[in-house]
């Protein structure tokens, strides 16, 4: 087991000003994400899971605190390089105009480097190479999310952020996607941060978990320990389905 810390989040807060009011979306959150593991971000809706995820590749600006990638503070990194190193798959698959291949090569094309073979990335996510010339909007939900993952992988990221990628998929497609991600994590030593509200899914895929509630980090640790014996009352309530969201 590799215990080195890939992402180290130290005491971050995110406060927004909206119509003259201050909204605290993240409140002094700290967590450590270990290299080559799947880390699930759990919590009821409105707890700040997705917001936290979006701060990791700096699509959202934190108001205070620091985030380190391999011991380097992310604000000192070139923002575009950081986003290539920390890829994101959104909740809903969105595609640029063009084919599956155009979408996969979107990231590499920006960098003016030699273009990789899109077949390779389709293979990594378990899709048939025949898909390259298809319109991604004609694919099934599960296939679309796998193309989204392939597109993120084409930037050769070290970390993959997944924002509830299976929320619109049926059980079979969800499990297939879980297998793909777990395999990627093992074979490519990819670090995965997975936002999910599905406890069964978290049990199946995650090695580490963090529980967020109302913008605060309540617990974190190994998934097996958390599911067996949560430390906090809220953690127990969450596992029992008694911790309500704020929305």
């Amino acid at each position: 087991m590799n215990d080195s810390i890939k992402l180290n989040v130290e005491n971050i807060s995110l406060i927004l000003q909206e119509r003259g009011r201050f909204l605290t979306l993240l409140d002094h959150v700290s967590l450590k994400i270990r290299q080559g593991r799947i880390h699930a971000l759990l919590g009821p809706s409105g707890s700040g899971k997705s917001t936290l995820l979006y701060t990791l590749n700096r699509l959202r600006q934190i108001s205070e605190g620091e985030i380190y990638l391999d011991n380097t503070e992310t604000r000192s990194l070139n923002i575009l390089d950081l986003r290539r190193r920390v890829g994101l798959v959104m909740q809903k698959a969105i595609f640029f105009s063009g084919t599956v291949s155009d979408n996969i090569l979107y990231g590499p094309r920006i960098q003016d480097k030699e273009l990789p073979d899109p077949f390779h990335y389709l293979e990594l996510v378990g899709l048939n190479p025949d898909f390259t010339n298809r319109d991604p909007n004609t694919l099934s939900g599960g296939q679309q999310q796998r193309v989204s993952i392939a597109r993120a992988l084409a930037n050769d990221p070290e970390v993959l952020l997944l924002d509830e990628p299976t929320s619109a998929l049926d059980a079979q497609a969800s499990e297939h996607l879980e297998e793909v991600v777990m395999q990627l994590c093992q074979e490519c030593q990819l670090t995965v941060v997975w936002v999910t509200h599905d406890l069964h899914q978290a049990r199946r895929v995650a090695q580490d978990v963090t529980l967020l509630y109302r913008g605060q980090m309540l617990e974190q640790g190994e998934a097996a320990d958390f599911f067996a014996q949560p430390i906090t009352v809220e953690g127990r309530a969450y596992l029992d389905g008694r911790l309500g969201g704020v929305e």
Partner: protein
Amino acid sequence: MSYLSLGLALGFVGLAAIVSRYQELGLEKDLAIGVIRAFIQLTIVGYILSYVFASHNQIFIVLMISLMIGVAAHNAAKRGKGVPQAQSIVLIGIAFSEGITLLLLLALRIIPATAQYIIPLSGMIVGNSMIAAGVTMNRLTSEFKLRRGEVELALSLGAPPKKAALPVIQSAVKAGMIPTVDSMKTVGLVQLPGMMTGQILAGADPIQAVRYQIMVMFMISGASALTSLIVVLLGYTRYFTPHAQLVVHDS
């Protein structure tokens, strides 16, 4: 045209007032204010123009054009509510395209450098640039809201803001140019443009009037395109932080 004929033309407004009264639209007061304001404003403009034309003083030309640009920018900026510095963006867009278009017209000797040509043509350029700037600003805001996911997806894949915003930029420039392009397509078939109509009514040769109108249409299409482009290129940057994060403003 005699003052009697002008007075009789008021009958058309009277007709509008009767319709308003009959349909209980409550527009009679606004109509009356409109008639009085139009009469006073246009009469004052008429006197100012005759003074400016007679004075041959270039300062007046500059002042009049500046006033037009200021009012147009103020008006167009309302369409970009919530966007920081919307007023400066449209002001630069309108002023720049007016300057370039006028400079080309004069440098290529398409029009003589006299107030009679410069002021009315500037009015047309600025008026149309105002519409283009307003539509562009409006579309920019709505497209950023609509395509937020797509723009953030591109950013997440390492795209710089300009590349990420490209579909929004293209759509906004297109929207700003559509009114001009559409009016070019139907001109002469649907309506005879104001300038040409005015010249014909004033006794000019219709062929000569048409030539001026074609020049005006080309001039306006160039100015609208330029305004839209400047407004978009200055405007899209206001939707991103210095750290390439998308900010969608409340309007």
